[in-house]
């Protein structure tokens, strides 16, 4: 039982970080990045290809993450520019459709070129005993990585000048402009950061189970559910939602079955929209 809970927590932290990446991009520019999971998989595939060719693991992981940071920046600077010129619903719909297209393209290319590629990062060493339960070392490292990155993110948004500027654009774009902040530049940086976070999630997943080239759609859906439950635009909300949904997912998969767990996840998301439309942590 405790082991299942801990598995759920590890998964939840990863969900949370996926949701944060999605929620930031949405909050800043109204773009629902439906290729978010696919970007994570791109990072994994870049790392896997490099490791196949004998690149050192650490280097391959770094290159994988940086490649999706670059991908995020390029998408923002090119495809998303016409989106940001639109307003309200038009912006959301255009952004959503374009990113759906990007997701299709990534999925298509991966399925065509690397149908059986997968990334596994083996963390050596036996299980570690926590609260009397043996936990895989990979799970511990994965949680530690997400925990450190998550904490760094929270501190970044609360205390740094650029982090505050990012929040100000989410709160009121015109107000940010009045303070001398360039919302376009903030969006570009954060789209890159969001890509990087997706990449980090892919690497931590690979520490416990292989990340296959077709995993993208599933990850996108999880990210979307987490972002909706946490409240679009809220970082800590996304983390909280991720942890709750990770636990729900793992517990229901363990006691009932994997198929049912996705239905329960969607039910959880739908009831949040009905009961707390502003997200878990938002005041109405």
């Amino acid at each position, binding site marked *: 039982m405790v082991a299942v809970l801990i598995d759920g927590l590890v998964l939840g932290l990863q969900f949370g970080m996926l949701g944060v990446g999605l929620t930031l991009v949405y909050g800043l520019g109204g773009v629902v990045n439906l290729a978010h999971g696919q970007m994570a998989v791109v990072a994994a595939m870049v790392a896997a290809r490099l490791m196949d060719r004998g690149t050192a693991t650490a280097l391959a992981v770094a290159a994988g993450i940086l490649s999706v940071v670059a991908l995020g920046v390029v998408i923002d600077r090119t495809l998303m520019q016409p989106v940001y010129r639109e307003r309200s619903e038009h912006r959301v719909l255009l952004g959503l459709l374009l990113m759906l297209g990007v997701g299709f393209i990534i999925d298509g290319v991966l399925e065509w070129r690397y149908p059986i590629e997968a990334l596994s990062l083996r963390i050596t060493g036996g299980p570690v005993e926590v609260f009397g339960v043996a936990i895989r070392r990979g799970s511990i490292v994965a949680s530690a990585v997400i925990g450190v990155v998550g904490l760094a993110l929270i501190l970044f948004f609360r205390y740094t*000048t650029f982090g505050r500027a990012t*929040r100000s654009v989410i*709160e009121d774009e015109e107000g*940010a402009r009045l303070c001398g902040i360039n919302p376009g530049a903030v969006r570009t940086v954060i789209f890159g950061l969001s890509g990087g976070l997706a990449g980090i999630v892919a690497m931590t997943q690979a520490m416990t189970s292989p990340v296959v080239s077709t995993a993208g759609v599933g990850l996108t859906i999880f990210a979307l559910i987490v972002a909706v439950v946490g409240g679009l635009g809220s970082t800590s909300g996304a983390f909280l939602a991720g942890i709750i949904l990770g636990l729900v997912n793992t517990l229901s998969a363990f006691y009932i079955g994997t198929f049912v767990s996705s239905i329960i996840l969607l039910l959880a998301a739908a009831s949040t929209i009905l009961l707390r439309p502003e997200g878990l942590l938002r005041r109405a």
Partner: protein
Amino acid sequence: MSEPLLAVEGLSAGYLGEDVIHDIDLTVATGEVVCVIGSNGAGKTTMLRSMCGLLPATAGSVRFDGVDLRRLPSHRVMRSGIVYVPAERHLFPGMTVAENLALGSYPKRPDPAQLEIVYRTFPRLQERLGQNAGTLSGGEQQMLAVGRALMAEPSLLILDEPTTGLAPVLAQEAYGALSELREGGLTVLVAEQQVPLALELSDRGYVLDHGRIALTGPSSELATDPEVRKAYLGI
């Protein structure tokens, strides 16, 4: 005579291809307080927004401190020494008063001496530093909007209807704070419907009517002008 701090010449601007303001000429010299008065819909906001690059101008020039502002995007204008406070304020409601003030000095870190000036002008803000901006009263929000603008240490503060949504007593109070800032040497351009308050505060004024400058002169003269008295002072 040297060039004024702000020199607007022949400025026209509007929405959807239709000009709302036409051929505006206006200057503000360093140390001056200048007001633009006019009724609702006269084009005051359009004029201020087009000066700051928030709305593209269709003709004319805006020179500030020797720089042609029409070539700059609005966020660059706000870093050049002008700060614009719109009537809707555009605060960051989910962030604290302290964070709102800090963002005013972006990209620099807030200067403690400047914070001191803001606290002295608006002691209420200092009492509410940890509170979210969205929970402030209307009057406090207006103080925060001006306070945030001051954090940029502007050489020209542009205010659009600072009394919007304020009860008469609070409007008086807001103008009290502005006259304190004026004593401190701040250069101000203020657009206002509350004509008596604006004329009392300012050195010079412009009367905007149907998108054109109808009249200009020292505020004391405008206050005794029969046309102005009839149209805006209700006398």
